[in-house]
């Protein structure tokens, strides 16, 4: 009796969550379908129709997206910014969290609270002063914008690293000191390898954010010279504001692919890393 009731409630939940997941997936599937349709078949009226033999354009939109508007250049900028920013966040935030967790002073505690606080400050609150400051300090190039990303990404990274770091027994580090390590060797040879699960999860979360970020590069970078992929998408407009929907959809799909691959590859670590930080933190 109880089992039957449980089964029924499971079925209801499955239906509700199934419908919800379709609702979430639907826009992405729509973009995929439209990216395969000919330009004329994408309009307000026809956008929801599946591609037919006449409207199917194959990979033409993708070829178009890659060849026009400097897609490859933008891809390069996006890659450069994402890689440098994530690398900087991982290295500096891991070191910073190590200091905060191991050196227990009022100052280190205060710094930790500041990092946690920075997570709740909305970006919009600081964006105009930030773009001014970035201009003043010449941090408006794709090769040095990572300094800004480091600042904005540090809150979450330090919070997660510090949470995990607390679960590493201090004795392991003491053993390495007795074995002959200096603090830098202890960090790179002992602490960092132990941080691997958190490194992967922080890396993926930050990479997703930096890769998809539109607002910060738009505000900071010289929009005429440097366009990241999210910035590029809006430039698939012809003259007089005509939107080239086909290539735009294709470009969106191309943008999503790398991040989905990274996410799938590191999915296991994300859950492990987040759980470790949360439970033991």
């Amino acid at each position, binding site marked *: 009796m109880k089992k039957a009731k449980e089964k029924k409630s499971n079925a209801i939940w499955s239906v509700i969550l199934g419908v919800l997941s379709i609702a979430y997936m639907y826009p992405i599937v729509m973009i995929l379908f439209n990216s395969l349709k000919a330009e004329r078949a994408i309009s307000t009226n026809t956008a929801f129709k599946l591609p037919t033999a006449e409207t199917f354009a194959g990979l033409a939109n993708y070829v178009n997206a890659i060849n026009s508007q400097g897609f490859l250049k933008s891809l390069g900028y996006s890659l450069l910014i994402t890689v440098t920013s994530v690398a900087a966040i991982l290295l500096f935030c891991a070191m910073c969290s190590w200091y905060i967790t191991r050196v227990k002073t009022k100052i280190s505690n205060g710094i930790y609270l500041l990092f946690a606080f920075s997570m709740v400050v909305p970006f919009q609150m600081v964006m105009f002063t930030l773009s001014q400051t970035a201009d003043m300090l010449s941090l408006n190039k794709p090769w040095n914008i990572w300094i800004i990303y480091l600042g904005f990404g540090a809150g979450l990274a330090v919070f997660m690293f510090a949470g995990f770091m607390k679960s590493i027994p201090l*004795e392991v580090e003491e053993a*390495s000191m007795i074995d002959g390590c*200096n603090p830098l060797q202890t960090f790179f040879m002992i602490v960092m390898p132990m941080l691997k699960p958190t490194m992967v999860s922080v890396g993926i979360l930050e990479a997703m954010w930096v890769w998809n970020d539109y607002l910060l590069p738009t505000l900071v970078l010289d929009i005429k010279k440097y366009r990241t992929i999210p910035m590029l998408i809006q430039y698939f407009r012809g003259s007089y504001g005509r939107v080239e929907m086909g290539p735009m959809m294709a470009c969106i799909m191309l943008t999503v692919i790398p991040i989905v691959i990274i996410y799938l590859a590191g999915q296991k670590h994300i859950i492990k890393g987040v759980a470790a930080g949360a439970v033991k933190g």
Partner: protein
Amino acid sequence: MASITFKNVVKTYDNGVTVVPDLNLEIKDKEFIVLVGPSGCGKSTTLRMIAGLEDVSSGELFIGDKVVNTVAPKDRDIAMVFQSYALYPHMTVRDNMAFALKLRKEPQEEIDKKVNEAAKILELEKYLDRKPKALSGGQRQRVALGRAMVRKPAVFLLDEPLSNLDAKLRTEMRSQIAALHKRLETTFVYVTHDQTEAMTMGDRIVVMKDGYVQQFDTPQNLYNYPCNMFVAGFIGSPQMNFMDVTVEKDGDGQVLVFGDSRVAVNKPELNEYIGKEVVMGIRPEDIHANSNAHVGAPSEFSAFINHMEMMGSENYLYLDAYGQKMLARIPARYEFSEDTTVTLSIDTGKIHVFDKETQKIICH
């Protein structure tokens, strides 16, 4: 190979708490020293000061004839085995053991030789390519020992290394560590709160309480001649019985009176305590059912058996003697039953008398 000397060493933490108020200790070269005491007595702090993991607040700490107060842990020529093993989880057993040697940039051949040698002694050869998480507790502890061994340090420090192991493994590892000490001929400093470990392993034992050394002596002397009630109670299991008794004069000698019982002793040190209360200490095995088993003169007393525990070869009798609690260890061949009053005797040759106020020994 090195001796260790503490000269007026003080350890005060940043929050103002003084854990070790004034430590003077001389540990000889190649000695196996055990620091023992209850939690918070400062024994681990003392060990960590030797390791260089805690600063010395004042005083001087020598390893050999060199003051090491400000010397970094890696330059002290020590090795340490931690309670939680502290193995590097991302390295294999081989890499764990070779880590210190690699940092010293020793030639690879030499490293391999030393690691294999240590693995052979500790029976770890089969596990050299495993990661620590794939090992049992005992194996992990042996890796920790191996990691310390390969470095051939002047001083070997062990911080409660057996407390995470089960009872059987503990006994096994105890003898392995003792054998290791004989083989390596190095100074060993071993911290534990377990008096059995201390008694079975140490050449000499430092009994600590509240940061002060209570007594520093051989296991036999600590057991037979404790300097105060704390040491007498801490060393020995089950612990020594303490009875409040009054000293009375009896001819040339003295008697210790509790209830109807009069224990005759002849100790000149007790003359100044005539008419006063003192504490009589008697170990559970020095209370006998048969008066022939005594070293000194037997002194009989009657007691009520509250509770009895069978231990196989012997029974523990929980007694009530004139309102005072006592424990007696009686061979199992004597048959007793609970809730009865029995007559037992105290071996007067094994009595310890303590000052009630200072808790220090008056006479053995």
